[in-house]
């Protein structure tokens, strides 16, 4: 072996480069064939009309024009492809679950960060939906959401029967629910305000304490006055909800919230929770001790120590979720709703699939793919620019 190498007279560097070439080759060829070249081909295809049976024809920016542009119709601006914009709206709507789910995962992680017996068991159970995620789980949830025989509606009806059998219980129940709604709404508003304040602080814009308090009190007042005014309708709505629960996946207004709710259940103890747990375990205990000496309570400790120190994780999860969320939703909708009812659960990814593999309009589908790519690119670049300013790194 050694003698051979000496005979060929290769220098050490050349041999190393040659070896590297050999090691890289399989991956690099695949990388060329299935990633880099397809990206270029895809860009070219976006400017053609092609139904894969005939040869493609160049159409210039026509695909993008019909995808993204507007035209005038009876004096109003109308999108050239109204479906596309509806599906973009659906995709963005479904991402409402991201911040809620992150808050939930953070709360679970905070609870599991305590030294408790059996915490591993809890972690495993909470992680179960993530492990099982896939078609089987979606079938299960389709069944749970079934209007007639689903577990969710069965439970709601059972509750309804008991609560609405007597007037007094019904009224008390309504009041309790209304107050609970109010508290939750106030909590969300308060949380958003606190978050906005933190973000502003990092951007060197300080809100005075009185403004924060005034805004919170005003929001609370508005919420509870509204609840008081609408008491009667709340009663009716709740009554209807329990006696005749909605057809979750079958109605336009409930389909998207149902999918979000399922996502919250599935994601609560999933990847994000584990990431948060890891981040929390990385916060040095000495910082809490220092905060305690300064007289900070648990609430102050969280906002002054924990939250800033785990902000890189929050940021990472948020960005990844937005990137994944924007290009997702096909499997869920395809298994559970077929994109319906009335296209209310069709996402951009689903539209791409339909365009490419049901209508075989490859050019138009490529244009949709590049729209997705552009959005993801913008999100990533913004992250790069803004990341350093909003996030506190140690």
């Amino acid at each position, binding site marked *: 072996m050694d003698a051979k190498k000496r005979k060929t007279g290769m220098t050490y560097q050349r041999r190393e480069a040659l070896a590297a070439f050999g090691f890289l080759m*399989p991956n690099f060829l695949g990388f060329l064939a299935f990633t*880099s070249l397809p990206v270029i081909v895809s860009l070219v295809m976006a400017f053609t009309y092609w139904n894969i049976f005939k040869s493609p024809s160049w159409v210039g920016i026509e695909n993008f024009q019909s995808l993204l542009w507007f035209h005038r119709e009876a004096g109003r601006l109308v999108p050239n492809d109204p479906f596309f914009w509806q599906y973009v709206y659906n995709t963005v709507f479904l991402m409402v679950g991201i911040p809620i789910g992150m808050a939930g995962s953070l709360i679970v992680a905070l609870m599991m960060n305590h030294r408790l017996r059996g915490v591993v068991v809890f972690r495993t159970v909470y992680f*179960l939906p993530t492990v099982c995620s896939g078609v*089987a789980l979606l079938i299960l949830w389709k069944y749970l959401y079934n209007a007639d*025989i689903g577990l969710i509606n069965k439970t709601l009806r059972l509750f309804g029967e008991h609560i609405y059998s007597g007037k007094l219980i019904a009224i008390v129940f309504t009041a309790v629910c209304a107050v609970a709604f109010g508290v939750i709404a106030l909590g969300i508003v308060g949380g958003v305000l606190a978050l906005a304040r933190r973000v502003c602080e990092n951007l060197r814009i300080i809100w005075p304490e009185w403004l924060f308090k005034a805004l919170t009190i005003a929001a609370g007042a508005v919420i509870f006055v509204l609840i008081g005014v609408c008491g009667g309708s709340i009663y009716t709505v709740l009554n209807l909800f329990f006696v005749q629960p909605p057809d979750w996946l079958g109605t336009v207004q409930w389909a998207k919230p149902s999918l979000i709710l399922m996502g919250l259940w599935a994601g609560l103890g999933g990847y994000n929770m584990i990431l948060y747990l890891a981040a929390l375990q990385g916060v040095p205990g000495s910082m809490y001790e220092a905060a305690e000496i300064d007289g900070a309570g648990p609430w102050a400790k969280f906002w002054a120590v924990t939250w800033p120190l785990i902000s890189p994780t929050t940021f990472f999860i948020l960005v990844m979720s937005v990137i994944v969320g924007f290009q997702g939703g096909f499997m869920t909708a395809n298994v559970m709703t077929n994109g319906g009812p009335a296209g209310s659960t069709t996402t951009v990814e689903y539209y791409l699939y339909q365009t490419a593999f049901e209508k075989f309009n490859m050019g138009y589908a490529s244009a949709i793919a590049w729209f997705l790519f552009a959005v993801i690119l913008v999100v990533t670049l913004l992250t790069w620019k803004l990341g350093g300013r909003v996030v506190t790194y140690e």
Partner: protein
Amino acid sequence: MSRLRLWQTISLYVILCLGAITMLVPFLWMLSTSVKQPHEVFGAGGGIKWLPEHFFWRDAVANGGSIRAWWGNYPDAWREISFLRLYLSSIFVAVVGTFGQVLTSSMAAYAFARLRFPGRDKLFFAYLATMMVPGSVTMIPVFVLLKHFGWINTYQALIIPGLFSAYGTFMLRQFFMGLPSDLEDAAKIDGSGYIGIWARVILPLSKPALATLTTFTFMGFWGNYMWPLVITITEELRTLPIGLRYFVGQHSTNYTQLMAGSMIALIPVLLLFIFNQRYFVEGIKLSGIKG
């Protein structure tokens, strides 16, 4: 974190238990439904029953009046969905695909992490950049390319495009960079070539990273939905998710069998999870910190 008082500990447990129940109830309902008779699921009235009415029942339609046990939905679903074939398909695709991806990724990662060659950092940056490209951008050209090869509805088409992962290369490269170089130098002095170093020094030292990548890649292949749906036509090639999907299409209301089938589909993943739990948790942390 500070020590908890007793009432705090108790309320933490209560909340965590409530959450755990929320997580488990759907699965328990799945199990419960899978051992019921169809008429029990559709039965009128809103009552919730967790146990089947009878543990032995007469199934006149499917079995010609023979008596079946409570688990009878399972063999039925097994036959109806032809699970054996789906399993074999899925296992074949996932095992070959995972092995191939880990192999090519670890080779490339070794070159990027441990060898010097001109243009290395630029090439690595190109790899990193492609991690941003959404799968839907490359999917259509790859489909067209494979159609050109005549690979539609073949195992090659299910496996080969998934063999090359920029993410896997990136992750392993980060891990390889952190390995001490002493052992590598020792192997060099002993006359080991590059292949020897890669196979006998680098890979054995990287077991945690390799296990993590293997677990995630396997899960990716196993759960992959869109690509198999696009690329397979006939039943023989369908993987588990696609088979289940078609079963739903045909028996959209036969929930007892659907639940039995879904349970059967979940068992391998659950087993994998139970035995590899450590790697899941470590892997997630690894991806989060490095990403």
